């Protein structure tokens, strides 16, 4: 009996297995722990935890310390703000209902004003296809009727409140103010489509063909035949680009209609031809222009680009369909019959160096070349069109044709809808166009008359044409036929009424970047045209008309010469714009990113030039990475300087005449006030380094700095589960004031949840329609993107928000971003196209944070790029905000090694999103590297300055002190590790004992 008990207790296999089991569990938590520590900002946010919390202090006038307030903040009978009393949360109590009602109203208005009516045909009864009559009887088609896409996956995702905002299309279309009657059997068929494998998923759209609708549904179409409402969607987002090879579509593109979508439209056309259906309405629920090859095949009566509208998108769609609201949006990108008409797509996606230097990491072997130069989007199509009309630059040559036939490139064959286009339910005409000069600005005004039968708003656009000169040809400066330089949204204009629209165009916009000649911005002599247009093409035609051209010269429509104003500059000016607005000399900073200027590359790239469209059209560049410097920039270990003229800063020393300072005491002081030095002198190196970890989120109790709570996503506050419209819709509105108000809404939603930092807005360029994150960026045009982002940022800043505007810079594709894709571009394109939006928001003064991108500029990672972060962003543009990295993961080129952190910090990087261990920079402090220590100190300065001017300081007075707390989840992880470690240890001892017992028993048995 005793032996049996012993053998059961010392069961070797059982203890061995238990040891393995508990060791595995312990290992899992040991892996989770450092990852959670790296990204503790997000975990804290998930659990609603704040680490640095104030010790409550009674103050006589608490209102004095509310630096940011909302009109929805609640007050007591004495007029004092009511403060949330949850531990660690100091924000004002908000009247949630009225706040949210306002948020919904503004978001809905943005969706409506950002919805673009692409076409709206006349019906047989003389009316237009849209709007539909209230109470119209409709048959719904398209699986997106059920799988409607509200926003993209990844950073742009906001998990919607299922009850409040994840409303289905049916609910919106049958709402009381819309009142459509829907074919119930069609809806049943769509509801059941998922069971048969049809639906909209990340993998693709599998549309249900008409044949698979139930017989009852088909039979009821005649009764519900006022219109067929078809919704087509695509669902994608961060992490990859949109498939350019997609078997479900006949031409293999995910931006084209799939075979089933075509089949469905074909069937509906047959029903319309038979008279069963009166009209077919199509809603495109995609944030990027679709390929419109099919546009003439199916006789679709009206088409709305509804985009991804967030929480209010579906209701806005219903409003527009029934005519409760006007779709006054205009396109932010050029709509093509085939996206491959755009030259950028010849160099988009996955390119691998043909060879690499041995010392360069073999995994960082991807590149992309912006061979099209400045000719992105409309800049290419409108410029080539003008050159066709003017008969220059081999513009008519078929090279680059995707859709053109007859041996000549044709604008009309390639472009379906130009940039800035929007049909709307009414029409407008322009007259009395005037341009006057005022100091360094041009004041433009135009009378806008509503010539239609409905009240509506118009987006008046002002375009500039710069002269294309012999100097440009000699120095490889490219000039677009038109560039957007101003826009205004009119108020609602009644039919027959006229309003005068005025805008200011700074001469600053007339400059061009001369990378190969003067190496700075220049203002050339010659004829400039300032034109007003309803879209980019209309503006070009107006300029061509001013040059005396007509349809007889090959124009596709006559322009109005009265809407283009010629300005002549008699002399070249190489100095005025060679210094930035803050007086910094502007010189070439990105020669190394231009293959033709990077001597070590020893290769040349032909950039697209209007001087010879045929001879320079991009063909997909094949490159080898060459040169020791280029290789060294890719290496993980970096050489870190220690300049002899730098002196070690002071640490932990009180130097202020006011004694020990608290952060709040510096509120209201400028960035360069001497007291900042005193405050920084008080900090230890460890404290300064702590600020750089985890996206600058940490607080410092020694100076009562609360830290920065933050969240991902440019499309709304995730905590409130209320999604705002995606970025392209914002730009489609062309309404600066409305977007500023949306910024206030965004800021208020964050303010309510006490979240100060947001990883947005997105200012990259829609270089290709296949970009996977087009929904997070505004437009193909930097001026439009910059202006809209600036106004949105302004609104958000009014609520104390820190915007980490992203992804700085040239992160225009997601393919290979994780391997630091080397992005090669000439400096003119870099500055005029890709940095333009960031520049606008920073120079306007509203951008106070930047997120650097995964990719490299040339061979230099954007996050460790001195020319980008220090020379251009901070020196030229005067940026004093924080820079943070994108999520580093374990990418060696973004961190891990101390030298990478030091190198990037010296290049202007302030804070890391992961991959930055405690003490990562300590070796440089211990080695008394004054260069690095001063750089770390300056980062601490920027982080604290930005934090001080954010909503984080609400409720903080000079009497407020903070304590650090350990969040419960951290304690829980530690406890789990301890428990499993103990169990593993106990089991291990028992395993060892059982083996000893077994060996002893074995020996004793042998003896016996």
């Amino acid at each position, binding site marked *: 009996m005793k032996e049996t008990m012993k053998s059961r207790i010392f*069961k070797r*296999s*059982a203890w*061995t*297995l*238990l040891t*393995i*089991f508990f060791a*595995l569990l312990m290992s899992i938590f040991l892996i989770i722990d450092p990852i959670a520590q790296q990204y503790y900002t997000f975990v804290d946010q998930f659990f609603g935890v704040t680490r640095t919390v104030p010790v409550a202090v009674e103050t006589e006038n608490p209102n004095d310390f509310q630096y940011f307030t909302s009109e929805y903040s609640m007050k007591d009978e004495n007029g004092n703000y009511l403060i949330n009393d949850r531990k660690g949360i100091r924000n004002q109590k908000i009247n949630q209902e009225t706040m949210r009602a306002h948020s919904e109203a503004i978001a809905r208005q943005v969706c409506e004003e950002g919805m673009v009516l692409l076409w709206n045909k006349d019906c047989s009864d003389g009316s237009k296809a849209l709007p539909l009559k209230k109470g119209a009887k409709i048959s719904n088609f398209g699986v997106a009727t*059920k*799988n*409607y*896409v*509200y*926003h993209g*996956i990844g950073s742009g*995702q906001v*998990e*919607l409140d*299922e009850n409040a905002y*994840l409303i*289905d299309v049916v609910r919106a279309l049958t709402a009381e103010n819309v009142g459509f009657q829907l074919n119930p059997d069609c809806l049943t068929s769509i509801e059941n489509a*998922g069971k048969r494998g049809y*639906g*909209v*998923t*990340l993998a693709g759209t599998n549309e249900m063909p008409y044949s698979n609708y139930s017989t009852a549904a088909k039979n009821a179409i005649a009764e519900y035949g006022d219109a067929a409402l078809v919704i087509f*969607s695509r*669902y994608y987002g961060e992490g990859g680009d949109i498939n350019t090879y997609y078997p479900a579509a006949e031409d293999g593109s995910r931006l084209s209609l799939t075979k089933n979508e075509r089949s469905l439209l074909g069937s509906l056309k047959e029903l319309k031809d038979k008279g069963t259906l009166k009209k077919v309405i199509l809603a495109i629920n995609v944030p990027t222009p679709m390929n419109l090859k099919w546009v003439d095949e199916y006789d679709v009566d009206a088409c709305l680009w509804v985009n991804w509208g967030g929480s209010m998108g579906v209701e806005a769609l219903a409003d527009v369909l029934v005519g409760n609201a006007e779709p006054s949006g205009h396109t932010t990108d050029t709509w093509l019959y085939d996206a491959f008409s755009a030259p950028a797509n010849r160099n988009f996606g996955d390119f691998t160096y043909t060879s690499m230097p041995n010392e360069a990491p073999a995994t960082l072997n991807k590149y992309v070349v912006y061979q099209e130069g400045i000719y992105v989007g409309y800049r290419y199509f409108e410029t080539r069109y003008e050159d066709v009309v003017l008969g220059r630059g081999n513009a008519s040559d078929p090279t680059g044709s995707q859709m053109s036939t007859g041996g000549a490139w044709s604008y009309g064959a390639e472009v379906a809808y130009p940039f800035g286009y929007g049909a709307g339910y009414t029409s407008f005409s322009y007259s009395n166009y005037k341009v006057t000069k005022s100091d360094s600005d041009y004041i433009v005004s135009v009378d806008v008359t509503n010539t239609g039968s409905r009240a509506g708003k118009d987006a008046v656009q002002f375009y500039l044409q710069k002269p294309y000169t012999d100097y440009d040809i000699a120095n490889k400066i490219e000039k677009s036929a038109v560039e957007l330089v101003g826009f205004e949204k009119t108020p609602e204009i009644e039919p027959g009424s006229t309003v005068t629209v005025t805008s200011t165009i700074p001469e600053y916009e007339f400059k061009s970047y001369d990378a190969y000649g003067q190496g700075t911005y220049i203002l050339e002599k010659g004829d400039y045209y300032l034109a007003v247009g309803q879209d980019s093409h209309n503006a070009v035609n107006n300029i061509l008309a001013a040059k005396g051209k007509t349809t007889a010269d090959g124009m596709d429509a006559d322009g109005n010469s009265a809407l283009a104003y010629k300005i002549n500059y008699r002399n070249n000016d190489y100095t005025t714009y060679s210094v930035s607005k803050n007086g910094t000399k502007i010189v070439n900073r990105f020669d190394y990113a231009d293959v033709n200027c990077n001597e070590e590359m020893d290769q040349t790239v032909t950039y697209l030039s209007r001087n010879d469209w045929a001879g320079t059209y991009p063909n997909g560049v094949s490159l080898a990475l060459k040169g020791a410097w280029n290789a060294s920039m890719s290496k993980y270990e970096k050489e870190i300087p220690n300049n002899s003229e730098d002196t070690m800063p002071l640490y932990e020393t009180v130097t202020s005449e006011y004694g020990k300072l608290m952060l709040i005491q510096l509120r209201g002081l400028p960035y360069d006030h001497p007291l900042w030095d005193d405050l920084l002198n008080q900090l230890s190196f460890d404290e300064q380094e702590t600020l750089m970890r985890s996206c600058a989120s940490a607080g410092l109790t020694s100076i009562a700095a609360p830290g920065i709570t933050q969240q991902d996503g440019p499309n709304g506050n995730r905590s409130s589960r209320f999604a705002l419209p995606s970025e392209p819709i914002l730009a489609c509105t062309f309404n600066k004031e409305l977007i500023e108000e949306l910024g206030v809404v965004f800021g208020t939603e964050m303010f309510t949840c006490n979240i100060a930092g947001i990883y947005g807005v997105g200012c990259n360029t829609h270089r290709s329609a296949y970009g996977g994150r087009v929904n997070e960026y505004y437009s193909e045009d930097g001026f439009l993107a910059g202006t809209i982002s600036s106004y949105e940022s302004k609104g958000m800043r009014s609520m104390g928000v820190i915007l980490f505007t992203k992804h700085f810079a040239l992160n225009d594709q997601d393919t290979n971003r994780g391997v630091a894709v080397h992005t090669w571009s000439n400096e003119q394109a870099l500055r005029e196209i890709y940095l333009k939006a960031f520049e606008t928001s920073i120079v306007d003064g509203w951008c106070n944070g930047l997120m650097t991108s995964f990719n490299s500029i040339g061979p230099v990672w954007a996050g460790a790029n001195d020319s980008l972060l220090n020379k251009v962003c901070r020196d030229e543009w005067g940026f004093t905000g924080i820079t943070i990295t994108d999520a580093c993961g374990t990418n060696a080129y973004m961190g891990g090694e101390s030298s990478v952190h030091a190198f990037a910090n010296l290049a202007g990087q302030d804070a890391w999103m992961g991959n930055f261990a405690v003490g990562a920079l300590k070796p440089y402090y211990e080695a008394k590297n004054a260069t690095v220590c001063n750089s770390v100190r300056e980062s601490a300065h920027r982080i604290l300055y930005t934090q001080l001017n954010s909503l984080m300081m609400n409720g903080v007075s000079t009497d407020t002190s903070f304590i650090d707390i350990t969040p419960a989840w951290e304690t829980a992880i530690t406890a789990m590790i301890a428990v499993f470690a103990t169990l593993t240890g106990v089991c291990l001892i028992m395993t060892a004992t059982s083996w000893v017992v077994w060996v002893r028993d074995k020996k004793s048995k042998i003896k016996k």
Partner: protein
Amino acid sequence: MKKIPWGIIMGVCAMFVFFLTVGVIAVYILLNGIAAQTNEVASFFGEWYQVVMFVFDILFFLGFVGSVVLYVLRETGKLDKEEVSE
């Protein structure tokens, strides 16, 4: 049959069943969160890796049940008798 270590097989299978079940549920929750945003629900078998995990989960579960049965039979002596009768 008597020499096969059913106890060890049972323990190994139990561990795989535990971790695979946790994995299957975690993946489902993740995918369901994504699908919910387009008014859809995720399935346990929507992706190939879900199917693979589930199949292995079932196989290990069957292995676990089988090894438990055989272990119990052996421990209670029935397996010995069968082998003797054979």
